[in-house]
């Protein structure tokens, strides 16, 4: 871990350098157009300086995105307006709450279905192929329909987005948990049978604990999918609230800096969520004595 810090930093620096280079290349034409219209000659350093500070650049430079990000989060919080409508904290919270609610529902139902599949052969044979097939189809395409239909019957706000998040996190959890609950091998199951353990005891003392590593792996996939679901769920209602709405509003009005800051905010949110689950995984597995 320690000796990968330098390579990671190098890669991140390389990405930033590429980003700045691309910003100069992509934004240059606008600068040149403006100068030509004003009948001025511009030097190279002027071009570079201008491409870094345009109002609506094709590609905003990293520091512009960073400044916008700070202005709409920390800066607003300092002014005591952390939850005003222009603050990314507010929009992020809208998205995060839908994500977490949907993730909790999807994970809970997913675990229940996985338990059913493992204990009931008919359920296994009928449901499992569909659960696996569902991984190969773009179920995200149903998102706009769910939003609009639920809107038309009067359900708005958090719930429709949470439903999308829930079904996106549902299938990875089902597939992962079925694998996990089946991971005890025949010898371990036989051992519990020689102890004349009841099915409930077998479940709680053997199947459940051995499924925990699989659970965490699918939780990480599930939470990332939930966030994508919540963001896409915010698109069809016409850019009202949330990070997805910021993306859509930005693309309507050509506010590239706003799009990029919403995007980075979403990325930070995803990283924090996956990171938290990773942390919980490490702590849990350590306490269970399963850490590798």
């Amino acid at each position: 871990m320690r000796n990968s810090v330098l390579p990671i930093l190098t890669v991140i620096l390389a990405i930033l350098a590429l980003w700045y280079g691309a910003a100069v290349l992509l934004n240059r034409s606008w600068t040149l157009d403006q100068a030509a219209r004003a009948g001025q000659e511009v030097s190279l350093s002027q071009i570079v300086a201008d491409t870094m500070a345009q109002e609506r650049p094709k590609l905003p430079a990293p520091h512009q995105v960073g400044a916008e990000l700070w202005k709409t989060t920390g800066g607003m919080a300092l002014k005591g307006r952390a939850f005003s409508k222009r603050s990314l904290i507010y929009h992020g919270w809208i998205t995060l709450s839908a994500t977490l609610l949907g993730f909790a529902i999807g994970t809970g139902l997913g675990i229940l279905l996985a338990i059913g599949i493992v204990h009931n052969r008919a359920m296994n044979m009928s449901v499992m192929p569909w659960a696996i097939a569902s991984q190969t189809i773009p179920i995200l395409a149903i998102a706009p329909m769910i939003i609009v239909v639920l809107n038309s019957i009067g359900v708005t706000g958090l719930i429709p987005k949470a439903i999308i998040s829930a079904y996106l996190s549902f299938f990875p959890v089902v597939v992962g948990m079925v694998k996990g609950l089946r991971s005890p091998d025949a010898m371990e199951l036989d051992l519990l049978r020689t102890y004349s353990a009841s099915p409930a005891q077998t479940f709680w003392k053997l199947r459940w604990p051995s499924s925990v590593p699989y659970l965490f792996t699918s939780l990480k996939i599930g939470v990332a999918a939930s966030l994508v679901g919540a963001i896409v769920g915010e698109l069809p209602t016409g850019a009202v609230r949330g990070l997805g709405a910021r993306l859509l509003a930005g693309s309507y009005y050509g506010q590239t800096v706003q799009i990029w800051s919403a995007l980075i905010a979403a990325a930070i949110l995803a990283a924090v969520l996956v990171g938290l689950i990773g942390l919980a995984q490490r702590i849990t597995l350590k306490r269970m004595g399963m850490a590798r």
Partner: protein
Amino acid sequence: MIWLVFAAVFWVAAWRLNVWLSNSPWRGTWPVRLAVPAIFGLTLLVVWEALVRGLAVPGVILPPPTAIGVRIADSLPILWGDFVQTFVKGALSGYVIGCGAGILTAILIDRSPFLQRGLLPVGNFIAALPIIGTAPILVMWFGFDWQSKAAVVVAMVFFPMLVNTVQGLAAATEMQLDQMKTWSASYGQTLMKLRLPAAMPFIFNGLKISTTLALIGAIVAEFFGSPIRGMGFRISTEVGRLALDMVWAEIAVAALAGSAFYGLVAAVERGVTFWHPSQRG
């Protein structure tokens, strides 16, 4: 009322049939293994139809499967046009470019452990991010037509592919590498004859993950702007007009295309990695 009773009776009957089939002596044979999920899927459709009719659910909330079937049959040319626009032009070209670039990058950084140690965690991190959010930016850059969709797909599949290929290239064992060395094989020979074949299960894992990502990317990118055809365009406009049977028809096409694409890649995998334990089962 009669429809509701019918739904309940059909459900119970089909479920008992499935229970009987899956506990019967033939449960391991392939007709039964195929029939049980098929019966379950059919049951869902029948119950859906019966509930929609029995409860008189309006078509703008949930159309019955028969209406969707009729819609599919009626609008085959539109569906085909949308399929070509979104899948063939957007998703497939992006898939080929993105996966190709991912594999090539992995091979290029293969000789530098330094870059690998840096790129692998960063790639893993980026693979978990909501890349789909770049869609509005890429639509702005590449215009409304399929090029921007392909660009979104490239951005979505590149990092999963890169990470999987880098892991795959590390899959050859010490002993196999030593064997190549005793034959004084060059770097290129070792790569072509040992390490790339050994990496194939990982590469195909990435290719299979990418099939779904490609279709999702192409469809969602169309929500941000597209010419007047394409699956994502059709879904978002028909939802606006509350023509839900058309939306479901597009979703059926998307589901079919997604599983066929996945199935195709899986079939190629079986041919290429016939030697791998998971394929010999």
